[in-house]
């Protein structure tokens, strides 16, 4: 299975994301620079965190014009898994691959700490290896992770099962405690917490691992 980790100028969790995927022997993971125009041959695309283009203007606002984003649109339309974490989530929102927007944290400060999350829907290609309502500890590290959408959108996300993760204790003012959502097709995930930071017990936890395994399972079943 081949995974692409996109690298934009200012990405800084690219290495972390690559490292997480590389823990799985079945996976061949490589960087794809933002200036590339093709994602051919990849089974999964991960958009890592960081401060693409310095997060100047709005987080993710400038990155969405990179050449690779056109390829990503097509990739997403083909139904293959796309995961955006933190700044990656922000980029996917700006690119219109997911609905809603991210505002500054309610407390106006950057927050870096482990947070408790609940798996709201385990019937997705990203969460199948978790238990329903399982409580995870996954760190957040962001200044603008306060998810916003209007009531109508929320109702739709909710009834479609597009909300995958909720915070147990809302850290940033996110609407209805939303921590991670997917698109209506269910193949594009955006989340603020960093699953790639909790995949080794040496670093304090492995609650992120099942997410990667879920995606791997999905891809293997599809090809099987």
């Amino acid at each position, binding site marked *: 299975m081949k995974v692409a980790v996109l690298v934009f100028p200012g990405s800084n969790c690219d290495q972390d994301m690559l490292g997480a995927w590389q823990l799985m022997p079945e996976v061949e993971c490589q960087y794809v620079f933002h200036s590339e125009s093709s994602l051919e041959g990849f089974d999964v695309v991960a958009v890592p965190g960081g401060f693409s283009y310095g997060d100047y*203007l*709005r987080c993710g*606002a*400038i990155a969405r*014009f990179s050449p690779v984003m056109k390829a990503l649109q097509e990739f997403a339309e083909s139904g293959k898994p796309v995961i955006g974490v933190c700044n990656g989530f922000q980029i996917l929102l*700006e690119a219109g691959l997911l609905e*809603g*927007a991210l*505002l*500054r*944290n*309610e*407390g*106006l400060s950057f927050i870096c700490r482990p947070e408790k999350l609940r798996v709201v829907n385990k019937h997705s290609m990203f969460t199948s290896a978790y238990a329903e309502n399982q409580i995870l500890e996954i760190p957040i590290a962001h200044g603008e992770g*306060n998810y*916003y*959408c209007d009531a109508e959108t929320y109702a739709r996300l909710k009834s479609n099962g597009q909300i995958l993760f909720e915070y147990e204790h809302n850290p940033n*003012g996110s609407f209805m405690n939303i921590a991670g959502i997917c698109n209506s097709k269910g193949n594009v995930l955006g989340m603020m917490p960093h699953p790639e930071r909790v995949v080794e017990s040496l670093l304090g936890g492995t609650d992120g691992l099942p997410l990667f395994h879920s995606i791997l399972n999905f891809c293997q079943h599809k090809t099987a």
Partner: protein
Amino acid sequence: MYKIKVHVYLKENILDPQGKAVTNALHQLGFNEVQTVRVGKYFQLFTDNVDDIESRIKSMCQKLLVNEVIEDVDFTIENAA
């Protein structure tokens, strides 16, 4: 030479924690007459004359400067020759 002043601000129904923080701070400093504050962005764009300037700016806003999910915009064009 034109100077275009673009204001981008959060839509009214969207909570503006920064505005709230500023309001509180002003109150603490004794400026109690201030009822609410909203905080937005202010862009000054400098450009040479072009045709169609207004529609060009609208397009810049739409494509880049504004996230219409959460933000509103207005702008003015000044001749800054």
